[in-house]
């Protein structure tokens, strides 16, 4: 079922136009620009070919199954268009236009009409008031972005569901700079039909998705979402960025419980109970999605830190251990045998205590051996490794070393620096090594591996 939406074999653009100012023109052009790998059907009653593609007066004239239709017409024309899509048996319809419930009663009436029209049919609606979808594998974008202003990320394993179109596009633009990819992006818009809850099911089934990220302002049906998410997190991590935290929405406060029950305090509890990791910014959402998608959960809370710069080691140790200004995990106490083994590898003035400091004398080979030794220590549950390329003995093959150790204990990599650092970050990302350009982000990424591990253990999930 979900394949028709996430991997459409055919797309109809209703309201396709030769007029460059029309949405129907831009969307068709973008399908061609990104190189959509399926069959394209422009629909326009004038029946002239657009961009040399055969155009149909009505979607019903197309002699093919239509997986996805994009209605680019203004709101008042949408119901008639939906009627035809239902008759044609189109699977998914994206309604781009605004002018619905967000504008008032008349718009809300149009939404009710659409829901009435699709009732009992196999046609499902995304939106209205949406930028639609971005499907990198199928090379589809229905967003009205200018390619020279907004970049879209490549293929990856993060599914991204957003209630806001603009936030979604901006976030994707930002991450594309770091080589981070998505499996799909779906903007819910006014969310009259297809909701975040059903999409969880789609992405649970989708093999290309390793973690599911959501930006939500409200839940369409909180209890259903909770039940579904609680089930799905057992196999796939879910990260939620939920806004509206400071809304003072306490309940009718006749009792104490009511006075204390703000909307967000219950959201907070529900997310934890469902095993959803909560993010508080778009950066955290992506960071956590990558950590959880690329790396296995932590089974304990003792962290070993590897660095060639002493300062990074101690700051990270503080951040790992502090309950108030850190994440409240433990800096692992290394086994004596580990320290002996490390002593064989590291220069005499380096540190074999945790944080393990290879010093500026540290080399790629030393990193390799040190990570191997720490992986053998039963007191170590996870590793934060700073891959620092500023010194002479460390070269690019350190990324190969890190990749080799990805199958061992959970490891988060910190790569600080500018041009060269970014080049290495991109290389790490290409190999799905969770690497971050700051200490704080590295430590917080480790923390979410701990949260997930603790949750799965608490729920007895293998």
């Amino acid at each position, binding site marked *: 079922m979900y394949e028709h939406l996430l991997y459409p074999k055919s797309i109809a653009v209703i309201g396709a136009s030769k007029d460059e100012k029309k949405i129907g023109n831009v969307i068709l052009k973008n399908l061609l620009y990104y190189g959509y790998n399926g069959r394209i059907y422009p629909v326009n009653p004038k029946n002239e070919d657009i961009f040399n593609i055969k155009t149909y007066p009505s979607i019903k004239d197309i002699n093919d199954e239509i997986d996805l239709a994009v209605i680019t017409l203004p709101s008042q024309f949408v119901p008639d268009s939906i009627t035809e899509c239902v008759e044609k048996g189109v699977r998914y319809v994206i309604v781009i236009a605004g002018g619905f419930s967000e504008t008032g009663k008349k718009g809300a009436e149009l939404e009710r009409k659409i829901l009435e029209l699709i009732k009992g049919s196999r046609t499902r609606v995304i939106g209205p008031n949406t930028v639609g979808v971005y499907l990198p594998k199928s090379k589809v974008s229905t967003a009205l972005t200018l390619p020279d202003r907004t970049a879209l990320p490549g293929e990856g394993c993060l599914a991204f569901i957003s209630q806001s179109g603009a936030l979604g596009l901006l976030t994707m633009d930002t991450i594309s700079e770091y080589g981070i990819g998505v499996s799909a992006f779906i903007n819910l818009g006014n969310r009259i039909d297809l909701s975040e809850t059903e999409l969880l099911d789609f992405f649970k089934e989708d093999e290309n998705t390793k973690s599911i990220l959501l930006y939500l302002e409200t839940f369409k049906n909180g209890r259903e979402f909770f039940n579904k998410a609680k089930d799905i997190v057992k196999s796939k991590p879910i990260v939620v960025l939920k806004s509206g935290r400071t809304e003072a929405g306490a309940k009718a406060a006749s009792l104490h*419980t009511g006075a204390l*029950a703000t909307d967000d305090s219950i959201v907070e509890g529900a997310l934890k109970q469902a095993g959803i990791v909560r993010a508080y910014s778009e950066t955290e959402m992506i960071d956590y999605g990558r950590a959880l998608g690329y790396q296995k959960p932590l089974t304990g809370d003792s962290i070993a830190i590897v660095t060639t710069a002493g300062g990074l080691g101690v700051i990270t140790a503080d951040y790992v251990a502090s309950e108030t200004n850190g994440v409240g995990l433990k800096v692992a106490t290394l086994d004596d045998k580990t320290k002996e083994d490390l002593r064989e590898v590291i220069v005499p003035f380096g540190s074999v205590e945790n944080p393990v400091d290879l010093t500026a004398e540290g080399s790629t080979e030393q990193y390799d051996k040190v990570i191997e030794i720490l992986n053998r220590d039963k007191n170590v549950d996870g590793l934060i490794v700073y891959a620092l390329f500023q010194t002479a003995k460390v070269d690019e093959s350190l990324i190969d070393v890190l990749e080799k150790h990805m199958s061992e204990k959970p490891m988060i990599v910190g790569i600080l620096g500018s041009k060269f650092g970014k080049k290495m970050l991109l290389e790490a990302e290409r190999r799905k090594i969770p690497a971050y350009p700051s200490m704080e982000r590295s430590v917080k990424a480790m923390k979410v591996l701990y949260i997930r591990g603790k949750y799965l253990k608490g729920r007895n999930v293998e």
Partner: protein
Amino acid sequence: MSQKKVIEEFEVKEMLKKYGIKVPNGMLISNLPETINLDYPLVLKVSDPNILHKSDVGGVALNIKNYDELKIKFNEMKNKFSNSKFLVESMEKSGVEIIIGLIKDKTFGLSIMFGMGGIFTELYKDVSFRLVPIEEFDAREMVEEIKAKKIFEGFRGIRASKDAVISMLLKVSSFGNDHYDEIDQLDLNPVIVRENDAVVVDAKLISIIP
């Protein structure tokens, strides 16, 4: 719109008892009987669905040491609340005061709350929520995620059983789940937690009449 109704404390406590939730020994009276078969000291409270916050209106007398004292307090209160019933209970030994609550949330449905009792509850808003029903794992996390969690881990020699709290949270969750559609809000405040047990001292329930 559904109607809401306050359930009398005695009735709430009788319901809670069926779930193995500990409440003080007590009885509901309209007039003072010749003998009271309860251990002193006693507590006397007005029991009236129209009076939700009893202590605000002088409807609670604590630490009543003998029958004569009870008689005086009862007559005083009977004078004030002539049409009400009264709940007389054995007074519980002190301990750490917590609050456990249930509330219907418009997005997520019935939710359960845990927090420290007393005036600090609302000052610090140091509370945790989960959705009903909860499992033991959830109950434990609810206790461990509040800032005052160390109270239940032997802080300064305070003896308050974490297991008793967890057990009560699970029982309140079961109660909530069985009466899912009937509960608007429930306050168990305070619940007294001691070394080996926890007991509900005051209970307020607002129910929904469908």
